């Protein structure tokens, strides 16, 4: 499943500009403790968090994450968006809760795996 398909499925708002949404997503990871994410998330996953500090971009770039969903209507810092554009890390925002996003995404991603 690609980032663009996920964006449509979950009605996410893309806040970065010029980031590529063709990338295939391998799964998802949710946590707000960045040190924990650094140790546990895996390449090509999409990451769900309520943190919006610019460090989220560095963590995503370091791990090769496919993108970041900033949930619960958290306002995303300008500097974070700027860095994400530079690193080609798509950031999505949504009013939905982390729980809701994870629930929907779990079903959507499991379904797409069964089809393959």
């Amino acid at each position, binding site marked *: 499943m690609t980032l663009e398909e996920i964006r449509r499925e979950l009605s996410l708002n893309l806040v970065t500009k010029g980031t590529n949404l063709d990338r295939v997503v391998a799964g998802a990871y949710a946590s707000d403790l*960045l040190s924990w994410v650094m140790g546990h998330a895996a390449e090509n996953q999409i990451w769900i968090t309520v943190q919006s*500090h610019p460090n989220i971009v560095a963590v995503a770039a370091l791990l090769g994450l496919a993108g970041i969903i900033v949930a619960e209507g958290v306002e995303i810092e300008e500097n974070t968006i700027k860095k994400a554009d530079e690193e080609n890390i798509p950031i999505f925002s949504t009013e939905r809760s982390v729980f809701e996003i994870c629930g929907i995404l779990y079903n959507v991603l499991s379904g797409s795996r069964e089809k393959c």
Partner: protein
Amino acid sequence: MLKEFPADLHVHTCLSPCAEDEMVPPNILNMARLMGIEILGIADHNSAKNLSAMVEASCGFDGLILPGIEVQTREEVHVLCYFESLKVAMEFQDFIYEHLPPKKNDPRRLGRQYVVDKMGNVTGEEERLLIASVDLSVDEVAEKVFDFGGIFIPAHVDRMSFGIIGQLGFIPADMKVHAVEFSKNVSVDEARCRFPDIFAKYPVVFSSDAHCLQDMVFKKTYFLLKEPTFEEVKKAFNGLDGRRVVLKGKF
């Protein structure tokens, strides 16, 4: 002629809900005297309301009181913010209070938030929830502290909870900090071994983060200064004129 001044920059008073009732100005100052601490930082969670009592009580204290606040940022990072005077610390508190969520403390579950006078008599209780995150990023708080001419130190970075490295993975390269604080849970040698990059890049202090008097039995950080003043401490963090921080392993 420079001299070493023992320091503990992170002591809570009974205003912090998690601190013991015994953390009143006379007790804290007497304990600091017993330990030979000559530079004493007072920092309660998100509030400065006991700083005036501490400063008043310290008129017979032979050393420097650094009035401060331990702010909890939006990212749940704890940062220590110190100011040159009580007046500036109170102005900074106003700024922090504007960004605290309008919630009330639950003393039964979270602990009492006592405001005291210089003798330690309870004169009131802070009703606002101090154990909360302000709606400000760690970078915004840092910027404000620098605007106020203060000292900015990320607290207990070795701790997974509420430390900047635990919450944000690492200290942002472009963030200005005067120093980095380690907790009493880690020895100087262990910290040097686990965090070589931090020791290479920033001045380091070890503080007791005392919530009770017994926690103050701790002395690892010394300042090499001409005299114990706010400006001299700042110079030590900036490595100016031979002023610097000295760490010792005992305790």
